[in-house]
């Protein structure tokens, strides 16, 4: 069964996303909305990790042997400036997208397994992740013209 592999992927993906949100919050502290929301969203990721814990304990977490190319890497460092912010937000989109589709995969498996506990965790998590993606997209849309056309 490959579910444990995917649960592990999800676990590390959420961790990486949380760390990256924190990194961007820190690195772009002069953008108060980015700082504040990235911190809030990092906390959400960690809550999801915590919610996943009992399920992980049940199935056991296997290191991702096979789909290792899907491994999620946290951002190494925040960039600077208006374009840097845009790039960092885009990196967060990539990470969050991977997390989002991992939840989709796990959701499908949970249905096949009729695992109510896991389904409950998934139902909590999925709308949150899509909201995070929606916020990132909203912020990117409003920042892009100024960063690309007018930034000093």
């Amino acid at each position: 069964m490959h579910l444990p592999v995917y649960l592990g992927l999800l676990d590390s993906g959420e961790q990486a996303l949380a760390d990256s949100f924190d990194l961007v919050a820190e690195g772009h502290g002069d953008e108060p909305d980015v700082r504040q929301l990235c911190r809030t969203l990092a906390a959400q990721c960690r809550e999801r990790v915590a919610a996943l814990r009992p399920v992980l304990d049940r199935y056991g977490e296997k290191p991702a042997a096979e789909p290792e190319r899907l491994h999620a890497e946290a951002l190494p460092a925040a960039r600077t400036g208006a374009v840097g912010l845009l790039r960092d937000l885009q990196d967060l989109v990539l990470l969050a997208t991977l997390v989002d589709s991992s939840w989709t995969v796990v959701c499908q498996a949970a249905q096949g397994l009729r695992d109510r506990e896991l389904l409950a965790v998934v139902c909590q998590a999925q709308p949150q992740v899509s909201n995070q993606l929606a916020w990132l997209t909203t912020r990117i849309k409003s920042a892009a013209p100024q960063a690309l056309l007018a930034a000093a």
Partner: protein
Amino acid sequence: MDDRIADVWGRRTPYRGGGHWPVREDSHLADGVDPRRVQWVPSACVLCSNGCGCDIAVLDGRMVGVRGRVRDRVNHGRLGPKGLYGSWQAQSSPDRLTVPLLRQGGRLVETDWDTAMDRIAAVSRALLDDKGPLSHGFYTSGQLFLEEYYTLAVIGKAGLGTPHMDGNTRLCTATSAAALKESFGCDGQPGSYTDVDHADAIFLYGHNVAETQTVLWSRILDRIEGPDRPRIVCVDPRRTAVAQAADLHLPVRPGTNLALLNAIVHELIAADLIDHDYVRDHTSGFAQLRDTVASYGADNVAELCGVPADDIRRAAHLFGTTGRVLSTVLQGFYQSHQATAASCQVNNLHLLRGMLGRPGCGVLQMNGQPTAENTRECGADGDLPGFRNWADEEHIAQLAKLWNVDPLVIPHWSPPTHAMQIFRYAEQGSIRLLWISGTNPAVSLPDLARIRAVLGDEKLFVIVSDCFLTETAQLADVVLPAAMWGEKTGTFTNTDRSVHLSLKAVDPPGQARSDLDAFCEYARRMDLRDRDGAPLIGWSDPEGAFAAWRECSRGRPCDYTGLSYQRLRHGPVQWPCNDEHPDGQERLYGDGVFPTALGRCEEFGHDLLTGAAVTPEQYRALRIDGRARLRAADYVPGEHTTTEEHPLLLTTGRTAYHFHTRTKTARAPELNRAAPRPWVEVSAADARRLDLREGDTVRVESATGHVDLPVRVTDARPGTVFIPFHYGYWDTDSTEPRAANELTATAWDPVSKQPHFKLAAVRLTLLARGDQSAPPGGDAAIGV
């Protein structure tokens, strides 16, 4: 003449529910003026969002006083201290700006309009050619007239094509608009001031109406002293006059409004005090709301909010069992943590009981400033004109047709830029020209040290139009002397959608001109044209601008098509005023149909926690179709909680005697005497603990700065201190920091983008012992 400094709300004229609020004519004339020689010019007061109808007294070409208009639906003849003393006296102040100023060699020197406008047009043209329209920003006011806002909106959106336009209304009224859009699909005040006449209970959420809109409080007091007094419920961390008059006072801990409101909503649902038929037929989102608030039992949040659980249940019960309830919301919610989400819960309470659009059953998401409603309608504040939806291509096409421009010129790739972001872009150097009209950000924005640095930066070309050389004007590159209220004609709309015409009573001094003139002149010099080469701004006077706006409003919720200057000469009318509502509409949504349909709605909404925009496709899938939206959000702890280093929470706010940054009110001797200097209010418990006495000077420090102020001891909730936000530096010789916004941090609500003026962590240190007497100014908050 009564002393309306001591007696802020004036003589009581009690009345019964359902009755007519008795008239009481308040007036004040300068000493020695013979009332028989005076000529009266109709207007309305612009010193708060109430918009009290008044006549300006004119003698020998000067304003010499005012009187309330007894037939005006807003005030029935009354005026508050600011209206009586503050509205007209600044006009003849010797330090009015009367000539344009230009910065040369680091100094502002006198010049003429031609030179000043030449300079503006040259810089603007060069920047447009070199950097494009995103280099231009406009920061306007809540105190200009409709005609000025609309003209500016057309210049910015159809002429230059910049999304960077906002008003200081972002600081006072953005959450009101945001909450209305999220719940009802579109801006537009549901209630009416006449709801006070009918209500059986009035809930005031973070709304210190006794000081912010003193005449509205007079109306409420007259009901309170009438034979069938309405119950009053007050949510406010301070023991304000409203709190003292209340049957139930919930002194909520700053920053926890949403948790408290979620609990009230939960208790209302748990006690099954809701109108199930109304919820089914006229709302969407009930299940999600119910589930979200399920964990907010009164017992669960009591400690967090600092309010006894029984009081939370009492509030819910009172709301759920009283016949007609009016709710009002203001800065205690708007300028605090999770502002939009908390304000939406007030809308939810009314939707859950189906209590909208009937006499006494209303919501007033209040405005702060007198003409804030017009920045919103006209699109000078981060909205599109006529409450149009930036994400609805059809709406953009309507505007493009009206203005005869390419739809792509109109920036609509995302919502117009909000004020705090405009200043951020200026700080980063991507906005290079900032035109500021009728407002004083160097005192009124958060984190003043930063704002002064932005405005003072040589790379930013700053244009300031004002009546006085404000703290902001002193940092400008060009200063335009502005005509003030009474020196120009125009219309404006108050909190309850009452449109007033304010006529020119006297000539402006020297070379001062209206902002409308300045904007029209700029458009001419920039040669802004439509697709066919005709001038984009096809008007040059207020009535022409009003006619253009009327067309823009056609068919929209804020429909002005039935209004004209002629009509408004007879008194105010509430919009919408059109063929369907020829006499205006007193209350909105009595039929349970809301402007949420596609093509009608001003916005598709946001996630209340993050502000993530709902896409048109997602919105379509929700099938809201004319129902209201019950919006839900979880409380999350805020960033600005207290620490060991900064153990107290600062809130800032308005007081009865002053408005905005005192540019007008401090020039009225009565008002200035009443509250000449700022102070800090400390709770009795904190004062004891810190060994502080009234009159002591303390240093108040936050992460961003400090101020040194005298102490006033009050019975506010322990842990909370208060500083009035009006005071800047133009009328003090001392260089000591004293503006409240030295202490506030740059942070805002994710949906409405309204800054958090009521949430800074601070500490107090005793600097000097005083004489144990309270500093003047806070008396209006004490005793009813």
